[in-house]
């Protein structure tokens, strides 16, 4: 089996700050995803990547950048943190495309003061 590791688990930032979340997977999966989880809104896709150095925007990409420099890692940057923002960011991977099962990390919980 494999595992997805997200760092940090908790991230506290200031308004306007640039914040970076990291994700590593050892499944050797091609595709990786970043989702944002908000209570009552489900999981919304921010970015995904089907291979190294590929980036595809999801419905919620505004305000975020992403980077996939290695097959095993996928990072997400909040370009300017919004005051009072609170959310959980989930990283996931799948063998190929989303028709396959997604494997999720445990998440990074963001709080902006």
């Amino acid at each position, binding site marked *: 089996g494999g595992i*997805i590791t997200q760092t940090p688990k908790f991230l506290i930032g200031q308004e306007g700050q640039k914040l970076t979340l990291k994700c590593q997977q050892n499944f050797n999966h091609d595709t990786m*995803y970043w*989702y944002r989880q908000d209570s*009552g*809104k*489900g*999981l*919304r*896709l921010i970015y*995904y990547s089907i291979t190294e150095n590929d980036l595809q925007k*999801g419905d919620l990409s505004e305000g975020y950048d992403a980077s996939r420099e290695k097959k095993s890692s996928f990072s997400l940057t909040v370009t300017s943190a919004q005051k009072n923002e609170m959310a959980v960011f*989930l990283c996931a991977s799948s063998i190929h*495309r*989303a*028709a396959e*099962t*997604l*494997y*999720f*990390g*445990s*998440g990074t919980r963001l709080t902006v003061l």
Partner: protein
Amino acid sequence: GDSVTQTEGLVTVTEGLPVKLNCTYQTTYLTIAFFWYVQYLNEAPQVLLKSSTDNKRTEHQGFHATLHKSSSSFHLQKSSAQLSDSALYYCALTSSGSWQLIFGSGTQLTVMP
């Protein structure tokens, strides 16, 4: 585009009684796969069921779901709820329109003793 609707945000059921979580969808594309994901408290979401065949019952861990394309539904059911079933449940689909996994807003299931 694609959308998934979970009408109940919160469902409470007594241990030993049946439970049904509703999921309906809309898409103008060819549907590829349907999923139920479960997220236990402080854990990562994980796949519970997957289906792509119309009118075929899929079962796992005592839960079952049948994809009904005629009514655009993929409801999740269990005949006897257990305390350990308390969790957040997401319905999701992938279609040929986006090849992304689209999630519903989630249903928080609480099983009471």
